[in-house]
């Protein structure tokens, strides 16, 4: 497979995952805003921006709908939802002949929908929120479209090297996003170990789970009793839940191994080593140990490892020096 094609598929997938994640965070927080809260609204929106990696062009000005509009539509902000969808579609267009027609149509119609002027108009009036239109409907539709795209990808594209690059992009993005999300909430949820959430605090904690689509899955495992350790255990270390960090890293590792087998790269030891080490360290970690140590430092170390995996993928498959390729 051409390196450029792998690069485009990888980024197409990352951008869509990013768009979906941002849409979900925004939707959850707009919903929480309707209730009284133990924490100030400033704090909550700043926390959401933190979870999105504090995009440089996005500032909290005190108006939630303005923030929502900017985060959704501001194309000068490269991490806005619409920017991400445009970028994903642009990547797909560059490799149009590599993906299935169904995939292309799904992504292209999402692009046409989110860039149409009518959509922007619906988001302009705050009042629209009261009538079930407005941001919520749009965000739900966007998330749904991304999910459909992933379904179409799985059922219409050969699960070969290209598909594996799509998986790798998706799970690496998801692992990074979950790590950042936990980091943003670390002070509020794990700052005070003996806290039992009640009322509005309970609502805030379910918000965290909802940000990772994890509330129902959590309840199935632990019932609706929320404790801070269990939340951390679930979002960080659960082996079966697809948005947990461990699940993401395991999936990433599998995709990277599949890519290595198909492309016959012999110099993949470094990539195997760092992805395997991260996967193993999550597999054998205990939540008590993590909480006795420095949680933020732990999460940041995971993020650094994700970054190193990304760079190694690039060095190995996409942006390798010609001299080494000629020698090997």
């Amino acid at each position, binding site marked *: 497979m*051409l390196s*450029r094609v792998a690069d485009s598929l990888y980024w197409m997938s990352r951008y869509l995952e990013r768009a979906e994640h941002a849409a979900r965070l925004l939707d959850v927080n707009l919903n929480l805003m309707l209730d009284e809260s133990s924490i100030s609204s400033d704090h909550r929106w700043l926390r959401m921006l933190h979870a999105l990696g504090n995009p440089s062009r996005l500032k909290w000005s005190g108006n939630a709908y303005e923030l929502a509009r900017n985060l959704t539509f501001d194309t000068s902000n490269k991490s806005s939802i619409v920017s991400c969808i445009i970028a994903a579609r*642009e990547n797909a267009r560059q490799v*149009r*002949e590599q993906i299935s027609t169904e995939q292309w149509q799904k992504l292209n119609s999402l692009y046409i929908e989110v860039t149409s002027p009518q959509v922007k108009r619906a988001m302009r009036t705050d009042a629209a929120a009261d009538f079930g239109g407005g941001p919520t409907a749009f965000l739900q539709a966007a998330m749904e479209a991304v999910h459909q795209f992933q379904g179409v990808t799985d059922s219409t594209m050969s699960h070969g*090297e290209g598909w594996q690059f799509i998986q790798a992009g998706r799970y690496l993005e998801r692992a990074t996003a979950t790590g950042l999300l936990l980091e943003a909430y670390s002070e509020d949820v794990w700052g005070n170990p003996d806290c039992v959430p009640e009322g509005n605090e309970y609502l805030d904690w379910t918000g965290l789970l909802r940000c990772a689509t994890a509330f129902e899955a959590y309840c199935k495992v632990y019932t609706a009793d929320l404790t801070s350790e269990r939340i951390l255990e679930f979002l960080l270390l659960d082996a079966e839940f697809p948005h947990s960090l461990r699940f993401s890293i395991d999936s990433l590792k599998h995709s990277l191994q599949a890519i290595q087998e198909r492309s016959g790269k012999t110099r993949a030891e470094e990539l195997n080593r760092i992805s395997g080490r991260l996967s193993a360290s999550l597999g054998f970690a205990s939540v008590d140990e993590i909480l006795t140590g420095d949680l933020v430092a732990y999460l940041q170390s995971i993020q650094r490892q994700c970054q190193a995996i990304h760079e190694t993928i690039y060095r190995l498959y996409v942006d390798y020096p010609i001299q080494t*390729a000629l020698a090997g």
Partner: protein
Amino acid sequence: MDNPSPEAERLPQAATPWNYTLDHAFDEMFAGKDQLREHYVPLLEHFTALPQDELQRRKQAADLSFLNQGITFTVYGREEGTEKIFPYDLLPRIITSAEWAKVERGLIQRITALNLFLRDIYNEGRILKAGIVPREIVYSCWHFRRQMSGLQVPRNVYIAVCGTDLIRLENGEFVVLEDNLRVPSGVSYMLTNRRVMKRIFPQLFREYNVKPIEQYTQLLLGTLRSLAPEGRPEPNIVLLSPGVFNSAYFEHAYLARQMGIELVEGRDLVVHDNVCYMRTTSGLRRVDVIYRRVDDDFIDPLCFRSDSILGAAGLFHAYRAGNVTLANAFGTGVADDKALYAYVPEIIRYYLGEEPILNNVETYLCTREKERNHVLANLDKLVVKAVGESGGYGMLIGTQSTPKERDAFAEKIRANPRNYIAQPTISFSRAPCLIGDELEPRHVDLRPYVLYGDKVTIVPGGLTRVALTRGSLVVNSSQGGGSKDTWVLS
């Protein structure tokens, strides 16, 4: 054109109304008033028997099919919404088997002669020594590449793919308007038009016994394979595209997919020690044949335009070393220069000793003083073309121009006569089209695609382009043209 004869009579059962006035241009459907050409009878019967809403329904089905397949082209010079659907007309253009046989023989003769001409001017230059073609015409051509001198190209084939534009004069004779020997495009429209047509009018299609064209991509692949460097039995063939912003990107992706070859861009290619490779996830892979859809100028920044990022540095030297084949070869544009065009009949006689089967359109060269004066005196009647331009750009259509435009062109012609030629305004043939909900005649041309590998092959028909604006003679997609399916009968 302003000489409308009475409207052809409405057939009593006609569900689709007519707005069909004949003029002096050749009409593909009517030989004269009420004289329907025989091969158009079933078509017209079929169409007029269809209720109007049914016809519109099928038209919409065709449009939707194009939209969903993303069959688009890019219009330059606009920021957003740059992808457009190539307009498509529902009525096929029909060519009889006898008409086609002559066109085919003529095209084979022409490409054979032009190929011999290219080989000659880049090697011995016999035709220049014989004085048949003036040296200054060849050496002053923008597309002449001295880098090609003395180079032996595989099988001596310079023009692997060519798209020749034909028009029909008022007497119905097919003549050559232009040879496109560099990177002709449009073949994907020919193929998708056919696919849509077969789906929408299956019965009519079966009745007509149309010659197939679907084998084109396979023939193209075979042509490219036959040009591989020696000693490469399993050649790696790729299609080199300028990328997603090129107007014909859809076609590049389509052809690559249909042939099952990689679509590469310049940044995917690396040349090392005169061998061309592409970057893959499993390392560098050698490339043997490049079907390039990038112009000469942009292929190699070391040899041609140094600001190009569409090609690969060193590619030309790899080509000269015989390690990779490029199709078409470099420098083929000298043979489709509009001034050289005037010499093509002589070129055919010189190399093949035959009379041209397909004639040229009468052409005035502005380099010849007598002809230049004639052109300058008759600017309002002639079509003036810049020799290096294509796609309908850089043209003056005298009958539709203002005095100011004509003055500007006269100035340009005097300043640089080599750059201009002129031809009489030809009212080329018209075919019935569905415009809104009526049948109206529109001007059409024909671009057959000629392949030259171990032999010359032409799929029957080609792309029929339509000037969709009433009275317009411009068929280019960038300027309001559309296309229709072309049926060659067996």
